[in-house]
């Protein structure tokens, strides 16, 4: 018994010592990364890009948080980054961005938003904060467009009966509400004479109704029909039952999802004729889903789309933050790639999936990484996010 | 599986136990018999029986003795560990006495001598009387406990009184209801009728009973009288917190003094009072239980099988203690399956059968044969 305790103690000390060794060798610039999702395909792809490519290319060390879903979790994670002497934080977590910005500003470390944006009010409040780098990600307009284009794609093919998976709509998440509202707006616009959702046609009013109720009503929208709706992420038997019921709705032709389409509905539509469309990411898992026919349409971020925000952050850390002509922080829109079939997906994915030569490679980023890049040049660079533009950049 | 279990139970002639019943629903005796059957499935060459018979009624003991006898006839060996001299003398061919982890001496059946055995067990000659020295019943006038028409949980309209300075015994066969009676007198049994009072004040649950000065030593010492993980200090102090409190606060010094007093008075053998009671011998555990109620100043004590699983030396000291408590004017109820104990200690003895009181015997007029006749 005594010996066992001694052995356990020694093993623990050895583990801690070994763990220290690589740490002692580190001397790179440390950047903290706040994540809301640590295990999804998109999150893993982002992380692989930063840790396996960017870290080596730019001599930076990324320190990742645990999966965050509360404001105090975000605050704790930022505290941990400060303890670790991180020079900057790139945030994928959005529970309380204002608090994150304030905390970083107070600690004198730079803060950047990846794959997202601040609201207009938030931007007005923080745009001149010294340590706020800015945001590069889909604006709410872009989110609206992605849902609209998705619904329009299927309506233009002659489909009339749809289902919508609303995701975080019940939790009043802006991104999902805008995507869902835009799907309804597409149906209103293309539903023919008198098409309306619950009597309204204005997109703003549709958004407002969804915010108010936290849900979407099924029914006719002109000559189109929203036959089924499921929202939330309950992950209980009743919720799965509703998803199964939606997939099995008689006559349903396509299910439009604001996100997580493969995870929540893949098994229910597999082998059926129901088309499943989703907003997700360009990862190998999504490619498999498209090849197997589970997913028919994906609008997604590509894994290296977070390259520009890293560059902006690095510039700030090096003492040359990129500010617009008024001296304010970045607020740049970055949209999605859209693939409507497996071949198109494969073509897009091939451009971005290489760990040796990703879409936003060091060669491309270096044009904007040194000090002195202008806001206009940088904004123009970020705006070239479509597949064709990326291919052109790489040539 | 049930067939095999049935066979195993038949080997020990426990026909009344059904193999399909969960053991949690069996009483302690039946569970003991199931344990024995389990062991016998392995057809042992040497069977070790360690203090099992204290939990068994006469019938259960007979079953075990039969089994031991049949093993002996098959040329196998039995090591029988017990405190009960009568039992040892009845079933054992040889006796080895241990004390403090050492072998003291051996006896063969023809050399069995009670005094010699007792002396070698406790390491000294037993001084004084084993039971009470006096032969006449004595008690004071004041009634300290009165139970009227207790009915329910197997009790059939039981009424009794215990006076100050009296030792009242209750005896009977194992299932006669006497253990339930003990609980009921402490407010711990579900009754459909009847009242229990102490000094004119009625109570119906253990909390009220303890506040009114009634103490209860359960037959199931380890599961009902003691908290095994707790220390000697905690087990003794818990009964008398209101005596230890000063201005509602429990101060460690007062608690230590309170517990130390009981430890000294009862000669509880321990290294220190923080010792968990689980590490103690049966006799010392029982002393801790006594200490809990004596420290609380209980004027009425209900003792259910108080010397079960306790060696002879400690038994004697307990009888002396009970006699001392009687002399101090406490009312004591002893519930026991040991005839000698009841006859040796009680002023009055009530015999129970099928939940009802059958007959009362006075000290000096207690005849074992008459008593047994009432029990059956």
């Amino acid at each position, binding site marked *: 018994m005594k010996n066992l305790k001694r052995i356990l*103690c020694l093993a*623990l000390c050895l*583990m*801690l010592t070994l*763990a*220290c060794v690589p*740490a002692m060798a*580190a001397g790179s610039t440390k950047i903290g990364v706040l994540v809301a999702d640590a295990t999804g395909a998109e999150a893993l792809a982002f992380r692989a890009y930063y840790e396996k490519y960017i870290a080596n290319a730019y001599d930076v*060390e990324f*320190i*990742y948080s645990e999966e965050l*879903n*509360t*404001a*105090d979790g975000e*605050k704790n994670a930022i*505290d*941990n980054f400060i*303890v*670790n*002497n991180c020079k900057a934080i790139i945030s994928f977590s959005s*529970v*309380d961005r204002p*608090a994150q910005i*304030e905390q970083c500003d107070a600690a004198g470390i730079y803060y950047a938003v990846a794959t997202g944006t601040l609201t207009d009010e938030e931007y007005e409040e923080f745009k001149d904060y010294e340590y706020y780098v800015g945001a590069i990600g889909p604006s709410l307009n872009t989110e609206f467009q992605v849902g609209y284009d998705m619904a329009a794609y299927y309506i233009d093919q002659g489909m009339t009966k749809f289902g919508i998976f609303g995701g975080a709509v019940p*939790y*009043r*998440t*802006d991104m999902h509400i805008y995507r869902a509202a835009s799907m309804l707006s597409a149906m209103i616009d293309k539903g023919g004479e008198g098409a309306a959702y619950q009597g309204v046609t204005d997109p703003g009013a549709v958004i407002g109704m969804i*915010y108010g109720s*936290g849900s979407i009503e099924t029914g006719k929208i002109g000559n189109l029909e929203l036959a089924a709706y499921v929202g939330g992420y309950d992950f209980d038997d009743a919720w799965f039952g509703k998803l199964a019921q939606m997939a099995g709705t008689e006559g349903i032709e396509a299910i439009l999802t604001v996100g997580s389409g493969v995870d929540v509905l893949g098994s229910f539509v597999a082998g059926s004729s129901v088309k499943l469309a989703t907003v997700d990411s360009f990862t190998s898992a999504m490619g498999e889903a498209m090849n197997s026919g589970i997913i028919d349409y994906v609008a997604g971020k590509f894994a290296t789309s977070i390259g520009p925000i890293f560059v902006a952050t690095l510039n700030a850390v090096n003492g040359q933050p990129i500010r617009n002509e008024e001296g304010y922080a970045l607020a740049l829109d970055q949209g999605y790639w859209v693939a409507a079939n497996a071949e198109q997906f494969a073509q897009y994915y091939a451009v971005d999936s290489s760990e040796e030569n990703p879409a936003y490679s060091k060669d491309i980023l270096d044009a904007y990484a040194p000090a002195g890049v202008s806001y206009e040049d940088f904004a123009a660079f970020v705006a070239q996010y479509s597949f064709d533009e990326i291919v052109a950049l790489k040539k | 599986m049930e067939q095999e279990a049935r066979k195993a139970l038949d080997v020990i002639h426990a026909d009344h136990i059904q193999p399909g019943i969960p053991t949690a629903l069996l009483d302690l005796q039946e569970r003991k018999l199931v344990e024995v059957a389990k062991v016998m499935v392995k057809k042992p060459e040497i069977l070790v029986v360690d203090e099992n018979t204290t939990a068994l009624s006469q019938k259960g003991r007979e079953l075990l003795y039969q089994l031991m006898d049949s093993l002996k006839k098959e040329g196998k060996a039995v090591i029988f560990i017990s405190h009960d001299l009568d039992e040892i003398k009845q079933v054992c061919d040889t006796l080895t006495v241990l004390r403090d*982890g050492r072998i003291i001496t051996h006896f063969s059946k023809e050399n069995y001598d009670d005094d010699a055995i007792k002396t070698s067990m406790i390491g000294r000659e037993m001084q004084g009387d084993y039971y009470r020295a006096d032969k006449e019943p004595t008690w004071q006038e004041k009634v300290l406990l009165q139970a009227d028409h207790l009915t329910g949980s197997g009790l059939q309209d039981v009424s009794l009184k215990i006076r100050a300075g009296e030792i009242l015994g209750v005896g009977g066969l194992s299932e006669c209801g006497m253990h339930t009676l003990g609980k009921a007198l402490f407010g*711990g049994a579900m009754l459909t009728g009847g009242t229990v009072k102490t000094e004119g004040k009625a109570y119906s649950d*253990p*909390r009220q*009973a*303890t*506040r009114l000065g009634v103490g209860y030593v*359960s037959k199931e010492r380890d*599961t009902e*009288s003691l*908290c095994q*993980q*707790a220390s000697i200090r905690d087990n003794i*102090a*818990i009964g008398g*917190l209101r005596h230890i409190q000063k201005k509602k606060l*429990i101060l460690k010094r007062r608690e230590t003094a309170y517990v130390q007093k009981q*430890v000294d008075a009862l000669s509880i*053998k*321990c*290294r220190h*009072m*923080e010792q*968990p009671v*689980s*590490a*103690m011998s049966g006799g*010392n555990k029982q002393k801790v239980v006594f200490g809990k109620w004596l420290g609380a100043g209980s004027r009425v004590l209900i003792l259910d099988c108080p010397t079960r699983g306790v*060696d002879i030396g400690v038994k004697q000291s307990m009888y002396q203690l009970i006699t001392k408590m009687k002399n101090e004017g406490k009312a004591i109820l002893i519930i026991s399956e040991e005839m000698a104990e009841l006859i040796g200690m009680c002023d009055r003895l009530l015999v129970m059968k099928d939940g009802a009181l059958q007959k009362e015997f006075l000290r000096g007029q207690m005849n074992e044969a008459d008593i047994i006749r009432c029990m059956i």
Partner: protein
Amino acid sequence: MGKQTWKERVPAFASVLGLLVLIAAYYIVGAVRDANVAYGLKAIVNQSVVVALVATGAVFIYTLGSFDISLGAATGVSALLGAMAYNATGSLAVMFLVCVGVAVALGFINSSLASIFNLPIFVTTVAMMSVLSAFMLILIGWNGAGDTIKVKGRDMRPLDNIPFKVVILVLYIALCWFVFTLLPTGREAKFIGGNPVCARLSGINEKKLGIIASLISAVGIGLGAFLTIIYAPTLTKDTASSIGMDVIIAIVFGGMPVSGGPRSRILSAVVGAFSMGFMTQIMSMLNLGSGYGQMIKAAIFLLVVFIALGSQRGKLLTR
């Protein structure tokens, strides 16, 4: 009569020794990694204080041999209602009273249900957890401001400081220690946890103790909710969701058996909560991936508990 040997005392102090070792390891690793250890201490207090508060109160419930699985949900509801009260009145005092009052009310409901229906407290808390989690969603929906309820961070800033939080923690621990150690409540609760049958037959009122334990625990929940709002003024449906599990880990890490009983100690909770805090900070400084960090935490946890629970059986008593 003799006294306990140092070997017999070690299990009682193993968790404190473990905390001291973790503190030493924190400074060593911090020095090697050139980390901001002073800031880290602040972070540890901020990250541990709510768990320490809730866990200290929960010790009373766990001591009874019971279990409260609704601690996180109760903290969340108390915090949401406290935040809504602040938004309605602008008063921190009102926010405090609502946080504690709601928590106490929930504790009273839990214990009353257990008492009336003669159920173990654990069973009623399972039901309460579901009800409260749903109620949090309803509250957020009522608020009509997206998926959060917020109070102005600037208004909370005067109280978002270490001395204030430490004072609240120390005062609450002192109260709990007083009740647990100097009043009969603690002894009776330990006895119930150790052997409820014996406790009943020793005259202890189990139902009354259950209610007292729930109310004391509820005060800790209310204080935890108050500090949660101050620390992170944006509240979501997941606010405080991990507290239930964190409390169990803290209590066990602090050397108290989760089954309660006589070996329960009021300080186990705060020792365990801060041990977890230091350990998390050490893992963070070492930048261990989530998997490695969790494995090492688990190994240290097992080691501390292994030593703390120790062996209860001493040498056989001589006659």
